[in-house]
């Protein structure tokens, strides 16, 4: 493999990995704190993409659309937790699993009803169109921008979780939510906020990918298995774990494409299996 090909593969892996990390962080926090395997997470990613598309072709524009995708999908996530998921906390988690699975089907159909079943191609904003010569390889500007912005969002999430009081409450909730509750903290509100934030991050991840992969109503179903791999590999509820897991999945998938293309997706699941065998709690997980 020549240097240009290797550099391209690593860069591709980092870009895709950052998006996986963004989605994985949300899924991991929801799974860690609320004990919910959120099967609607993929469709929230898709909704973010469609919100960006509608905003970008309208007066809001691309950059406003990114913000709108984050806020709108976060609001929807908060509403899902407040109006539906909350009612099932006292029953077996399987019911929540079924609820989120059902919601994902309903929302996918809603996307088809609103935006149609046909895929849509969307060009990056003019400022980020075309590519740039990095010396070792030629690379699309938009992808580089996604990598930088997604890394900044991931860093902001990490700072929020690790350095703020609210982040400490979320971390404590992941460790022992009953203890957090008896300390007088409104843990239900923490649940709603965490679900909303996780959903918002998924929506933002979807929005970032629109000029790269375009839109198709089933795009959420396609991304979900990789998001779960990121969470399992990184460790339940671990934000650094989700970041590491996302980057590992992205880079391994990309390098494998360059080495042996038919094994690209297979290698991701093999990586998860190996990770589980070596460290069942995930690379940076505690439980």
């Amino acid at each position, binding site marked *: 493999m020549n240097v240009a090909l290797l550099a391209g593969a690593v860069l591709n892996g980092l870009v895709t990995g950052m998006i996986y990390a963004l989605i994985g962080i949300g899924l991991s926090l929801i799974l860690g704190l609320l004990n919910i395997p959120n099967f609607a997470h993929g469709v929230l990613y898709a909704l973010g993409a469609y919100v960006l598309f509608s905003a970008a072709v309208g007066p809001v524009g691309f950059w406003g659309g990114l913000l709108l995708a984050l806020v709108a999908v976060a609001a929807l996530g908060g509403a899902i937790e407040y109006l539906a998921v909350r009612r099932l906390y006292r029953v077996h988690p399987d019911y929540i699993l079924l609820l989120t699975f059902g919601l994902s089907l309903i929302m996918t159909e809603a996307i088809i009803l609103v935006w149609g079943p046909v895929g849509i191609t969307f060009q990056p904003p003019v400022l980020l169109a075309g590519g740039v010569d990095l010396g070792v390889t030629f690379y699309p500007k938009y992808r580089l921008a996604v990598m930088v912005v997604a890394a900044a969002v991931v860093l902001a999430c990490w700072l929020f979780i690790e350095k703020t009081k609210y982040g400490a409450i979320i971390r404590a909730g992941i460790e022992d939510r009953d203890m957090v509750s008896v300390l007088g903290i409104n843990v239900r509100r923490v649940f709603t906020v965490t679900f909303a934030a996780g959903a918002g991050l998924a929506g933002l991840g979807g929005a970032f990918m629109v000029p790269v992969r375009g839109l198709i109503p089933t795009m959420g179903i396609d991304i979900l298995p990789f998001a779960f791999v990121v969470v399992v590999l990184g460790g339940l509820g671990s934000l650094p774990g989700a970041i590491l897991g996302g980057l590992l999945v992205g880079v391994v998938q990309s390098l494998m494409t360059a080495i042996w293309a038919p094994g*690209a997706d297979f290698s991701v699941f093999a990586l998860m299996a190996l990770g589980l065998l070596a460290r069942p709690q995930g690379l940076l997980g505690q439980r």
Partner: protein
Amino acid sequence: MAQVTRREFLKSTAAASVLAASVGPHVASAQGKEIVMLGIWPFTGPFADVGPLLDRGMRFAIEEWGSKVIGRPIKYISRDSETKAGAATRRVEEAIDSEGATFVIGPWSSGVALAVTEVAKRRKVFYYFSGGTEEIAGKRCHRYGFNWAASPYTAMHVVMDKFMEANPSAKKWYLFVSDYAFGWSVEKYLRLAGQKYNIDFVGADRAVLGTREWSGFVGKAAAAKPDVLCLLNAGQDVILSIREAHNFGLAPKVPVVIGWGVGTEDFVQLDAKTRENLWVGTNAYYTVNTPVAKKYAEDYQKKFGVPPGYAPSAAYGMTRLVLRGIEKAKSAEPADVAKALEGWETEDWPGRVWINPKTHQTVRDYFFIRCKKSDQMKHAHDYADIVASSSQPLMPDEFNECKDIGSL
């Protein structure tokens, strides 16, 4: 409560048996009048987007016949293939057993079709498929199975010949290939067709159907500096690989050739920019200039507001030939219809068609089209021009593995 004696039980059972026996034949003959046609289409799974279009095409043909043929009503039923061999064969068997289906058309994936054709052979039901695997009219041929799409041998030669006529210096080709029956067939014949032009296949990546991350593939292709990026993949894989080729600046500088494409269904998902310098080999395009195709395109657009793509056109074309075969045979027995189609030369959707009696391959034109730039488009659906169409070269006998098609 009164007890039923053994004698009374036997009497009533015997009476019920006699009644059932007398009613049975009437029910059976009533069912026999109805011709049950099954469309086995992918409503879920990797090709879920085309399932409803295929269903629409088959319904369209049946409605044109007034849901009646040789004076008998047609009952159309559809089932979900899921693009899974297990699910598709199970549902075909169920439709044969519980609905009395005797004519089966579909699905969309070659891999699944290879399983369904075995059911048709074993259950002696008529089967029509349109796809890129050579095996339906090749190694897995049988008297009840037919293939509507052009043979991959012919198709890949048409693509290579016509593209090289227009671009004689484009000698370095890079391939993205779907890693299943369809991809293997078309890759084999594209490579064969390329020998005449000394094509250097500088790379070929096989990818699992449903691959969503194409940046690595495109990066690899770009590094090989090809003159042509040729896509021998299917479904969303085609769309995603084209988008990535543009993201990485490989296209439109390098032409993208879809060897076995669907045309319209892909074009609507791309924008004018990503359709630039895109060439497509296809079994159907809505501007095909034959009487049947022209009328179908007009009626279809009147009804649905959009032109028909390959999926509804193939379903329509296959259903038409089945219905015309029933009329020719004056019978709805699968064996009679199969015999009626064998060796038949007629005009239909693709123009002149001939059904090879030795293989059951429908010999018909394959189309090569080139997408227009946005300023060349006269209306929203004016995506492309048909550059060439041909049913030649025919697959030489030595390549066809259907050595004995067997008996009915």
